[in-house]
């Protein structure tokens, strides 16, 4: 393999890693800060993609679909936290798993009833539909670069929100000691509700952004869920920064595994997880 192909593969790896990060960041927030094992996170990704599809065909513009869809996703997150999840913080993890697994079934069935089981495509907006030629046979779709850009911007935004704002301070405090935050007179329930809505919105946003590149199909949520858990575990539970590192690492290992070790490429990501957990049982970034 020549140097040029290697560079392109590197670009593929980073781009895949960034998209993984976008989905996994919401999972790690909910998992780490609220202690909820949310198996339904993949469903939020799926809901986002289907929202993009139906809203884009309704409004005729992906931008409007993403804006509207994000608002809807936040509303869904607020509602679910109020109706269901707020009652599960002090329960066993097994009960949370049962609740969120049930939600997967409910969401999949609703999707099937409302929109059917067909595979749909979402058109890439005209402004982003071009491709940049890299070699005489290969070009790189602008939309993929745009996706990476959006992921980077969101990663930066998340960092600022959590590390540099008052709300972020409350989130961090709430994750380490819920009772203390309450006794200081802060409304921890509101903080949790906001974090959950944020998590749902991030997953849905990832689904909406990915929809034009990956198409929209039944079962897309469960596929993404497993790899997201790997990201969260490798990165260190609850750490957004760790999730970014882990997602990029997985992107690299997966992409170059497929190129250099095609026969075992499916295993490599899990091998990576095993090695990292042996080396650092708490994941790459330890919670403080």
């Amino acid at each position: 393999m020549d140097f040029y192909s290697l560079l392109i593969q590197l670009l593929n790896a980073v781009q895949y890693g960034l998209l993984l990060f976008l989905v996994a960041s919401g999972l790690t927030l909910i998992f780490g800060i609220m202690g909820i094992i949310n198996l339904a996170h993949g469903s939020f990704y799926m809901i986002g993609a289907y929202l993009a599809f139906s809203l884009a065909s309704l409004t005729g513009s992906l931008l409007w679909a993403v804006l509207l869809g994000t608002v809807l996703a936040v509303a869904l997150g607020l509602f679910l936290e109020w109706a269901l999840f707020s009652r599960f913080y002090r329960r066993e993890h097994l009960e949370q798993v049962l609740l969120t697994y049930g939600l997967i079934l409910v969401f999949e069935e609703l999707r099937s009833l409302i929109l059917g089981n067909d595979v749909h495509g979402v058109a890439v907006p005209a402004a982003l539909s071009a491709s940049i030629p890299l070699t005489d046979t290969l070009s790189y779709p602008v939309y993929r670069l745009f996706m990476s850009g959006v992921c980077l911007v969101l990663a930066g935004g998340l960092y600022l929100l959590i590390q540099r704002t008052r709300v972020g301070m409350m989130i961090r405090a709430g994750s380490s000691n819920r009772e203390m935050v309450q006794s200081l007179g802060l409304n921890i329930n509101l903080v949790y509700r906001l974090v959950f809505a944020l998590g749902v919105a991030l997953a849905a946003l990832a689904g909406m952004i990915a929809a034009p590149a990956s198409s929209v199909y039944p079962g897309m949520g469960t596929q993404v869920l497993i790899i997201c858990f790997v990201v969260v575990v490798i990165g260190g539970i609850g750490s957004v920064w760790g999730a970014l590192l882990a997602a990029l690492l997985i992107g690299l290992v997966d992409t170059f595994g497929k190129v250099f070790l095609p026969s075992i490429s499916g295993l490599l990501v899990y091998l990576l997880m095993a090695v990292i957990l042996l080396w650092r049982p708490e994941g790459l970034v330890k919670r403080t």
Partner: protein
Amino acid sequence: MTRPHLTLRRILGAAAALLLLPAAAARADQPKIKVGLMLPYSGTYTSLGVNITNGFKLAIAEHGGKLGGREIEYFTVDDESDPAKAPDNANKLIKRDKVDVLVGTVHSGVALAMAKMAKDTGTLLIVPNAGAGDITGPLCAPNIFRTSFTMWQSGYAMGKEALREGKKTAVTFTWKYAAGQESVDAFKEAFEAGGGKVLKMMALPFPQVEFQSYLTEIAALKPDMVYSFFSGGGAVKYVKDYAAAGLKAHIPLYGPGFLTDGTLEGQGEAAQGILTTLHYGDGLDNPKDKAFRAAYLKAYGSEPDVFSVQGYDSGQLLAAGVEAVKGDISRRKALIAAMEHAKLDSPRGPLTLSRSHNPVNNIYLRKVEGKENKVIGVASPALADPGRGCKM
């Protein structure tokens, strides 16, 4: 004297008794033939299961709902496309309902389990879709029939077609599972036998859809063509990614029909012009297909697809056997012989069965035009699967 009140209940009762009369008469005559439909009625393959069922019932309806003078009674089980549940599900039909014929299914893993059961119990089995070579290979048996295809057939036909188009080098790319492997192996067999060279055979784990690094690899290898098997959601993403990577203009993409069947809505512009091979397609200009499409549309209000055709031919095949023995299905040898030698007038064109009970039919060359897989020629006329491993 009391006159009986003519209440609604009595009227209904009388009506019900009247309705039951013909059925009772038929029962007195000869018992119904029990057909067990084991197909996916939930999950990703739901529409396939429904279309196969519709096609099958249409064929039976065209015989007046009776075969050899006997009525047909249906038993259905949703196989959920889950191989782990397959033995249990097949047992429900074979042992509990005591069906005479088992029809199913879509998923190859489930169908293989059904074939094993059929081989053990001797129940007549008609496979209306699953393309695993083993079913009419090592697992073949006198009572196991298939009306669909093997992955080998479309792959082999495309290997020959690629040579005719002057292609010298190819890369194959598929999911790492039986169906994909059988398809690309058959392509390679035909392509290399005619002097072509497969530069690299790439495969990614099922059902992953992150194709980008493989597409970069293809661009670096610069083959004359790419042969790929993907289906459903994976096929939509693959065809779109292939076009978006700019490969489509330089390195044409070929595949078995599954690459573009039932997926064109999602693939849109990216699929236009792709050539595929399959035993059915749009715009087949034969009277049987036209009649079938019209009848199907009238009965179900939707256009038939290749799965409807396979279901329909399963019904036709059963009819050919049962009619030949005049409904006496205990004459097993004669029943099976009649099915083996059946010459069916299928919407796909003439259809006979090979020695291993797999369809022998034309494999068509199809080109994606708009939302259709237009038939533009015959890639391999009356192509029979070699049935490797079948001792019968």
